[in-house]
């Protein structure tokens, strides 16, 4: 994509939305509005984009759980998790024994380029979108939990109990496996994941979201300049989530 593609894309979507909202009031006949136009569909995802996250562990504070609360609120997960609740993002405290250096690391689905959860799925429910986001198609998921076993990052959860009051944009239900979607409902409308937004709001700026395929994006520049690492890079899964200061 061309320079500043993410911003350009967001701007274009905003314009389309406004244009559609303007057209929404068109009166075809007395009492009949043209409502289909009011709902401008979001564009189809392409492989020109590879969404990625860069997490700076030196800026992530160990007591902070704003990303987790934001994730729970955005996706309708349990605000007070039980041991069996679904967990899309968690904080892992690490310590180097010899030096005593401690760090707090948010870990979620790493959105691998070669996702093992997709390899093992017997129904094709676990899949990778063209823009690199790894998702579960709940219509096809039979709840076998092979993907839970296959994921080296423990990123997938199973929903054990019936749910009510789900978010309109995040359908969830008993008997399906689920995991971080990078807040796909926000990304498709030109937004950023809820955890990134919450981290920026708290003033930590430990998470950076962007298009890894665009050489001019902020995240591409950062990963080009700094020595970032992927978790378990030895498995050669090429995760889209990278860490700084591990």
């Amino acid at each position, binding site marked *: 994509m061309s320079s500043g593609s993410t911003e350009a894309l967001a701007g274009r979507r905003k314009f389309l939305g406004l244009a559609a909202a303007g057209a929404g009031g068109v009166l075809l006949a007395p009492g*009949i*509005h043209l*409502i*289909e136009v009011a709902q401008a569909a979001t564009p189809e995802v392409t492989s020109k984009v590879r969404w990625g996250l860069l997490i700076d562990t030196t800026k992530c504070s160990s007591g902070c759980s704003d990303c987790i609360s934001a994730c729970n609120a955005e996706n309708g997960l349990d605000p007070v998790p039980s041991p069996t609740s679904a967990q899309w993002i968690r904080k892992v405290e690490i310590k180097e024994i010899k030096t005593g250096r401690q760090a707090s690391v948010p870990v979620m689905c790493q959105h691998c380029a070669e996702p093992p959860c997709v390899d093992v799925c017997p129904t094709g429910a676990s*899949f990778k979108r*063209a823009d690199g986001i790894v998702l579960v198609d709940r*219509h096809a998921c039979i709840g076998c939990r092979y993907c839970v076993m296959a994921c080296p990052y423990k990123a997938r959860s199973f929903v054990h109990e*019936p749910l009510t009051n789900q*978010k309109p944009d995040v359908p969830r239900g008993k008997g399906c496996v689920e995991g971080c979607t990078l807040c796909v409902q926000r990304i498709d409308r030109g937004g950023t994941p809820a955890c990134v937004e919450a981290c920026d709001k708290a003033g930590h700026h430990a998470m950076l979201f962007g298009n890894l395929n665009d050489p001019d994006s902020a995240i591409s520049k950062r990963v080009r300049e700094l020595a970032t690492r992927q978790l378990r890079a030895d498995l050669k899964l090429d995760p889209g989530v990278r860490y700084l200061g591990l």
Partner: protein
Amino acid sequence: MAPPRSAFGASPPGGRHRRTGKAGSVVAAWVGVASLALGLAGGVDAGERTPTPSIEKAAAGTQCVAAPDVMRRQHPQLLKHQRDATVHRGVRQGRDSLQGCVGCHASATSGSVAQAKTDFCVSCHAYAAVQIDCFECHASRPAQALAARP
């Protein structure tokens, strides 16, 4: 109600005629009592023998994405097509999105398409005896209503 007349027009002769007349009046009385009872019990059916689903009107000033006969037969196919486009290709807020349906058809009283027995989706699906699983996972209320609720 008059006793039923013979199919042959003229009544057959003799005692048989009397017996038929008596049985007919008994049947007529029973039908009368039964229809009265039905009329009192089921106000919705208004005395019709076949119960019909109560289809609540969509929100005023809205227009459906297709004609009623198309929607009645093909809404599962339309929804399934849109669902694959949304989940796999990220095409949200498409013409045939489930959220679009819920937005216009949520009940004015319950605020949902699948909560009360008279709600739009449930009333028809109960009548047709087709189980509807959409709202096990999907929200049956419009987004604005969810945001407004405490």
